[in-house]
């Protein structure tokens, strides 16, 4: 997958060369406004790069690739206010060969996995910010995509929930052979969940660091974070990010 | 090529204005041949001679002018008696007839059928659909009398209201069986479509049926008796002029109707009254009462003034 585009109206990213292996969990960190969300949209085929190409599984992305799920940064706007939370989660499943009951069950299961078992019948605007974000995550998880794009998916949840969700993503990835691209501002998180961490410079974005994370699996919130490699990598990513900050 | 108010009125002459309560009059008229008298009177300087300056205002139908009359925006209007009597009966206004206007002349109204229609005689009209401009108007009133005289049951006729410009398309399209036409459509239908005349609604008991006149309110009349008399004289004098001179009528028609000179030369005119006659008008009121269009009898004489023109 090569993201090297300058999307339509705004030249957000330029000369960016990046590839993700199948089944990999790639974390992208980079200063605010550098073009991470734009890159994600290009991969999803939501905007067409003016130059450069995006390939998924060797095929050029012209349209949205199959079996893709996205968790948008602006999660509250990506939920449909006229549907209950459960319907929001179940909606994409219509693309799968599932009958109504199966869809409902899958949605319920996904909601449980993000700690929202009781919220299915509520409407999105009746939820707190963090709960809405978890609904968006549940929607993507229920879909069981082969490629999952997540744009700062845990930004609005508390520390404990965040850790649980990180582990959930790792677990799901293990079970259902998934490629995941995850954008985050949390350096610890990028190292903890990533197989690889790519650090972008400020706009126009280019890759300033591409670190392989070779931490022992399965990862664990306590032991992994104490691992000397973790501490080292985290410092390394921190240094790279700080070298290209905006303020 | 387009319509509008013709402003052909001449300035009032100073000598004749003596004694009139009011010299400038606004009169609502209809865009139909019937209201020709007022235009002839303007054209021939008859109002001027009486010291009047008359501005006609074309309206589409009499009911629209009545509010204007009540409000005092106009001094008088040209309206058909059926509407005016109805309004008087319902106390929408206190009617005063200022001068008689038109009466139906033979062949100026006609029930017609298309050449290939099965309708041949008045009897064939039974159970058929016939158009009228407005329901419950003089067209129905006159036809009812004539049908009775022709041994046709008037109750079997179905009247539908069709506006003027839609008569031809509805007739051709078969939506009405026979057409109730007035001039100039009678002439046009005969000439262009070969339509046949089945019955003249202005014949027999309805011969010379009074159609429309110039009316005002009783209050206005009480305030302006001399002006009213002068106005009546001018209209009657116009009627006299028109009685034996088609030319004066044909000349003014394009001013307020959409009748061009060529048609004007061939159409049948109604009779333009040159005097007021309560007896023939009483007929209209009586028939309306018979048809239950009035709640009580109207004594027409009390609404009219004697004819003062020479």
């Amino acid at each position: 997958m090569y993201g090297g585009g300058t999307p339509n109206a705004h030249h957000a990213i330029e000369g960016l060369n990046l590839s993700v292996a199948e089944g990999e969990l790639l974390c992208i960190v980079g200063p605010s406004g550098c073009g991470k969300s734009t890159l994600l949209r290009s991969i999803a085929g939501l905007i067409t790069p003016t130059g450069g190409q995006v390939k998924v599984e060797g095929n050029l992305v012209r349209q949205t690739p199959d079996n893709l799920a996205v968790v948008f940064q602006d999660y509250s706007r990506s939920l449909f206010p006229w549907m209950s939370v459960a319907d929001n989660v179940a909606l994409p499943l219509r693309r799968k060969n599932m009958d109504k009951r199966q869809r409902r069950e899958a949605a319920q299961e996904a909601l449980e996995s993000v700690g929202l078992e009781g919220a299915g019948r509520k409407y999105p605007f009746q939820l707190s910010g963090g709960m809405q974000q978890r609904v968006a995550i549940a929607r993507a998880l229920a879909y069981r995509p082969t490629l999952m794009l997540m744009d700062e998916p845990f930004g609005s949840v508390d520390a404990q929930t965040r850790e649980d969700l990180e582990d959930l993503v790792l677990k799901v990835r293990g079970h259902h052979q998934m490629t995941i691209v995850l954008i985050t501002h949390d350096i610890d998180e990028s190292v903890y969940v990533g197989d690889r961490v790519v650090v972008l410079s400020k706009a126009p974005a280019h890759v300033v660091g591409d670190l392989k994370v070779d931490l022992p699996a399965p990862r664990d919130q306590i032991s992994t974070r104490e691992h000397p490699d973790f501490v080292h990598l985290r410092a390394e990513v921190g240094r790279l990010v700080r070298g290209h900050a905006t303020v | 090529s387009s319509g509008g108010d013709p402003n052909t009125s001449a300035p009032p002459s100073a000598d004749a204005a003596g004694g009139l309560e009011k010299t400038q009059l606004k009169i609502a008229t209809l865009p139909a041949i019937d209201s020709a008298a007022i235009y002839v009177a303007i054209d021939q300087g008859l109002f001027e001679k009486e010291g009047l300056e008359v501005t006609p205002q074309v309206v589409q139908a009499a009911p629209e002018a009545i509010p204007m009359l009540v409000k005092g925006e106009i001094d008088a209007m040209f309206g058909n008696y059926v509407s005016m009597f109805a309004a008087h009966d319902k106390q929408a206004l206190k009617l005063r007839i200022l001068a008689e206007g038109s009466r139906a002349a033979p062949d100026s109204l006609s029930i017609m059928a298309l050449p290939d229609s099965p309708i041949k005689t008045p009897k064939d009209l039974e159970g058929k659909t016939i158009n009228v401009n407005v329901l419950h108007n003089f067209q129905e009133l006159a036809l009812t009398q004539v049908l009775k005289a022709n041994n046709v049951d008037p109750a079997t006729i179905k009247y539908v209201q069709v506006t003027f410009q839609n008569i031809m398309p509805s007739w051709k399209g078969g939506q009405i069986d026979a057409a109730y036409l007035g001039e100039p459509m009678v002439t046009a239908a005969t000439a262009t479509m070969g339509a046949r005349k089945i019955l003249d609604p202005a014949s027999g008991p309805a011969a010379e049926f009074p159609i429309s006149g110039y009316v005002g309110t009783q209050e206005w009349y009480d305030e302006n008796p001399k002006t009213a008399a002068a106005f009546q004289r001018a209209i009657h004098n116009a009627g006299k002029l028109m009685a034996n001179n088609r030319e004066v009528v044909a000349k003014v028609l394009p001013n307020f109707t959409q009748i061009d000179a060529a048609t004007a030369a061939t159409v049948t005119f109604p009779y333009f009254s040159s005097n007021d006659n309560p007896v023939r008008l009483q007929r209209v009121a009586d028939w309306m009462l018979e048809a239950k269009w009035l709640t009580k009898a109207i004594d027409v004489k009390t609404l009219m003034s004697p004819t003062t023109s020479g």
Partner: protein
Amino acid sequence: MRTAVFRVLVLAGLIAVWEVATLLAASPFFPTPSTIVTRMHAMWFSGSPATLFLTDAAIGNILPSLGRMALGFAGGALAGVLLGLAIGLSARVYDYLDGVLQFLRAIPPPALVTVFLVVFGFGMRMQLAFIVFSIVWPVLLNTADGARSVEPLHLQTCQAFRLSRAERLLRVVVPSALPKMFAGLRLALSLSLIVMVFSELLPGTTNGIGFQLTDAYSTFDLPAMWAGIVLLGILGYLLNELFLVVERRVLAWHHAARDLVG
């Protein structure tokens, strides 16, 4: 509940003012409300219990009018929603139809009566065509507007999950356009009542509220004319209330989301 009482009070007050004003004016053109109501009762609502107290005149005029209106409204609403969606969704369809539709929208129906007559003939068909033609525009324009202003992130979400066109349309575009659509429908509803009256002035009409109204007008039966006007007002009011009930149900999410803040 309190607002309902309040509303009734306001209404009662206004009717009282009306009664006094018309009594003082004593103009035959403005009969008192009590005269009008008496007339309405005599004309329409003094029938036998078997016909729900409706008189023959009511059955022969009010029901056909309502039927025409309902059919016309349904047709106009359907056409407006479909065309509006097509135009709001497809730039191509929009380009092709925009000029012609804007042209048609500006045309005063009375000028076209003859053309309607030639194309549709007398009676019901022409009346319906007339109503549909007149009320379709607010629905169409508002629907197109709504379909065009769907939250972009919603569309991107659909696209990311590769929802089919039909799913996008039914589950995302239509719901987001619904509030605006309803604004158009509400306009169209009141309009359909008005146009229904207009349509009953068309050549060949033989019954209906509008027919009775103009007949009363041309024979100077002013209380009957006012009875017609008041009946239309009441019908309009009732239809609007009914509409709001439906709207509140359909747009429950919308109202709830918007009413959050006091």
